[in-house]
């Protein structure tokens, strides 16, 4: 059976099937017992302490930029590395002059 809205989803048809509504004019007051843990089982694991990166956002940003700079190759290296200051080779042309 459908309606304007379609059916309401059901995960388990047993849920709420036993509900006996109380008189809505007299609200129910449930006072749940307070849980007092006398054990240490709810303590967080010692390696799970959340800390915040103390570095200032601006500084972090600058360092990051700097790092990026360091990593980036400055210029494409020539295919064949030629020693800049090696034994000088006589220019072929000069010999021809």
């Amino acid at each position, binding site marked *: *059976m*459908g*309606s*304007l*809205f*379609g*059916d*309401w*989803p*059901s*995960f*388990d*048809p047993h*849920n*709420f*099937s036993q*509900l006996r*509504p*109380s008189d*809505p004019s007299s*609200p*129910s*007051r*449930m*006072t749940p*017992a*307070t*849980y*007092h*843990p*006398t*054990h*240490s089982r*709810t*303590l*967080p694991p010692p*390696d*799970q*302490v*959340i*800390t*915040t*990166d103390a*570095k200032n*956002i601006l500084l*972090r*940003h600058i360092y*990051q930029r700097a790092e990026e700079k360091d990593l980036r190759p400055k210029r494409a290296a020539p295919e064949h590395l030629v020693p800049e200051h090696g034994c000088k080779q006589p220019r072929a042309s000069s010999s021809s002059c």
Partner: protein
Amino acid sequence: MGDVSDRIGRPTDNGQIGIIDPDCRLIGLHLYDGLFKVIPFDNKGQLKEAFNIRLEELQVLDIKFLYGCSKPTIVVLYQDNKDARHVKTYEVALKDKDFVEGPWSQNNLDNGANLLIPVPPPLCGVIIIGEETIVYCSANAFKAIPIRPSITRAYGRVDADGSRYLLGDHTGLLHLLVITHEKERVTGLKIELLGETSIASTISYLDNAFVYIGSSYGDSQLVKLNLQPDAKGSYVEVLERYVNLGPIVDFCVVDLERQGQGQVVTCSGAYKDGSLRIVRNGIGINEQASVELQGIKGMWSLRSSTDDPFDTFLVVSFISETRILAMNIEDELEETEIEGFCSQVQTLFCHDAVFNQLVQVTSSSVRLVNSTSRELRNEWNARPGYSINVATANATQVLLATGGGHLVYLEIGDGVLTEVKLAQLEYEISCLDINPIGENSNYSQLAAVGMWTDISVRIFSLPDLNLITKEPLGGEIIPRSVLLCVFEGISYLLCALGDGHLLNFLLNTSTGELADRKKVSLGTQPITLRTFSSKNTTHVFAASDRPTVIYSSNKKLLYSNVNLKEVSHMCPFNSAAFPDSLAIAKEGELTIGTIDDIQKLHIRSIPLGEHVRRICHQEQSRTFAICSLKLNQSSTEDSETHYIRLLDDQTFEFISTYQLDTFEYACSILSCSFSDDSNVYYCAGTAYVLPEENEPTKGRILVFIVEDGKLQLIAEKETKGSVYSLNAFNGKLLAGINQKIQLYKWMLREDGTRELQSECGHHGHILALYVQTRGDFIVVGDLMKSISLLIYKHEEGAIEERARDYNANWMSAVEILDDDIYLGAENNFNLFTVRKNSEGATDEERGRLEVAGEYHLGEFVNRFRHGSLVMRLPDSDVGQIPTVIFGTVNGVIGVIASLPHEQYLFLEKLQSNLRKVIKGVGGLSHEQWRSFNNEKKVVDARNFLDGDLIESFLDLNRSKMDEVSKAMNVTVEELCKRVEELTRLH
């Protein structure tokens, strides 16, 4: 766990936001303007170091994670500096710890857009809820629908695929929003009105059309969504309500039943969910029927046959006769006869017996009567000269005492009474009981006997009447009533004394030994104890000048007052017409009534359908006056109307109303009288709240008198600001008006009418919001300048400042605890006390209120009032401890008790030992939680104790109690006794 606060940063105005990425890659927090904090998860679910990202948008309204994004993506709803609202998306680049521009954004939304709903796959995208439109937005779709103007407060997803949502608005209307879609592409939006609920703060679709509506403005509800509308067109059916007192804006402490016990009447809830709540300690009797009957000496109910589930007869005994009442066919109680009973004398005891029989004990004999034919079957006569003084019986046994200390034990057979045993005791017997508490519910193996002369209670074995235990009670007051009973599987002997004290012992049913003696004071007159059952649980009714129900919870005996003045006798009367009822004899009257649920606090709701902001009670006219406001909704514009209303203090009905002017708000109300005038008045303070003004510059003080149940305006006085507070002061009226404290005289004009005339004032506050007075002293709680102390000088007719606290606390309530100590609550949920330093050596020292106590309550206190919810017995120790009650935004009612120094030190030690035993869930430290904590400082709590923590000692198991006891070097019994004493303060 960890601390994610930052040292710098401006806390967000619109509240903190905490969200989790749907693919669990990170937690996002928006705690400070311009910052978005990320706590990343690694792939094992471990939390890693958190970091902040700069968020350009400063006025953030909402942030959500989007579904179905390869990188974690947030959508931010914000307002720009021209008050226009937009959404923007950002991807969180975890490695770079920065935002990357997101896939889409949308500018210039509804000016009232305030809520984002992320839609799960396959549709994805986000719904933006505005006040006039709802928009669906994603990278490749944009759909919008107009809605009736409303502010959506909460949403709940219905379907896992996110195609339907429940929306709750500020007037409590529940709508269904449907996303229509085709082939995973959104084609449009639809909205339908379902019905009305409490104003929702949370909406959770549970299952099978059941929805939980969590409300911080009214009672929370369990509702069912029906497929077809009811007669009023509503699809919503409210099945259950869960009490919520919050927000408590104001309250008063009154004694409506004039029994010497306070009740708290709160202004609770907001807008249409506004109500008055009557909170009282103790159990109510709801009267069903009553007749006038003087001089009742005893009452018993009887059945007409052994297996009849209902009682038929009510036997009422008087000094020289016995009358029998029974229900007739019209369900009326009428007089009848049991022929076999002797009705010309007083009945000492009656009981149903086996074999369809009834037993009647009079001073001369025991009569056994057929319960159907009502004829006498057998009679046992006391020996001449030894009349029966006290008697008791159960279904098979009779125990009675005659003069001369004779104890006689009879057994009941089919038409026969057999004298089984006679014992001679050394003194007269004052009371008896053989209530069966063993396995056989018709037969007791023990008898409890209370004695004159040696003031003792004794346990005898049955049937041989051997003495097992003798317990001297001490003192000179004889036991008047004894009772053997079982609570939660534990056997007790209760013994009530002639002076209103009650002793209880643990009873070992196999050995008859008594242990663990405890004494409490219930009243001042002799007590009669009777058992009764309610909801299949046995309780004990102690009839006296302070009738009390004794019950057990978590294997502890608890005592709860009954809201009746004086009860001489009580017996359960479970008839077909009045099931589970009690017959009660009080003040010349016999009443049949049902009893409330057995619990400590009772709350009655008076829904008003409008927002109540102030309340005060007037004893003389037996009325309440309230300040309230009602929202008037029209298609064009919402407006508010403010009222002063008069309510009857018994029926809580409106009996008179005074409507305030347009833009006029009621800010304060007071019942008071003036010097040289015997009348009692209601004074109300108001403010004209004009849209163009930052602070009100005009207000009124209205003086009303209650005449023939009507509010009559007697005088009015214009003021130069909002009248935040009114106090009766030396026969005059003291008002807090904006930054000023102003004193008014009540003057008689020549024509005989009266008027308020300004006498003197005191400037020097930001806003003098909260004022309390004591003698000539005035304590002012300022908006942001903490507490100051003023004094009124009669001769000079002037008010001067005497001292102040120089801390910058933003106050929410103040109260005077005693001449020298003043209590304050501030807006960071802290409490503190300041002390007047009269003995200071210099003017500077005397002019400084010294901070004495500091404590983090964790609640926003709106009001303090002197008073107590429990009966204060002048003879008890706790009766001497002054208490203040407070009410908070979350609906908490609490008690602050001023303890003697010795007791404080003892309990402080107990508290610090309990902190070692009761550990905070998740490792959160109690000490840290209770530290006074505001923007400026964090300091350890001092001169305040956490009563809830201390009382939790009683819930510990024995080994943990022993641990605490050892550390304290005080026995467990002593600790229990001292903590139990404390529990009787509230």
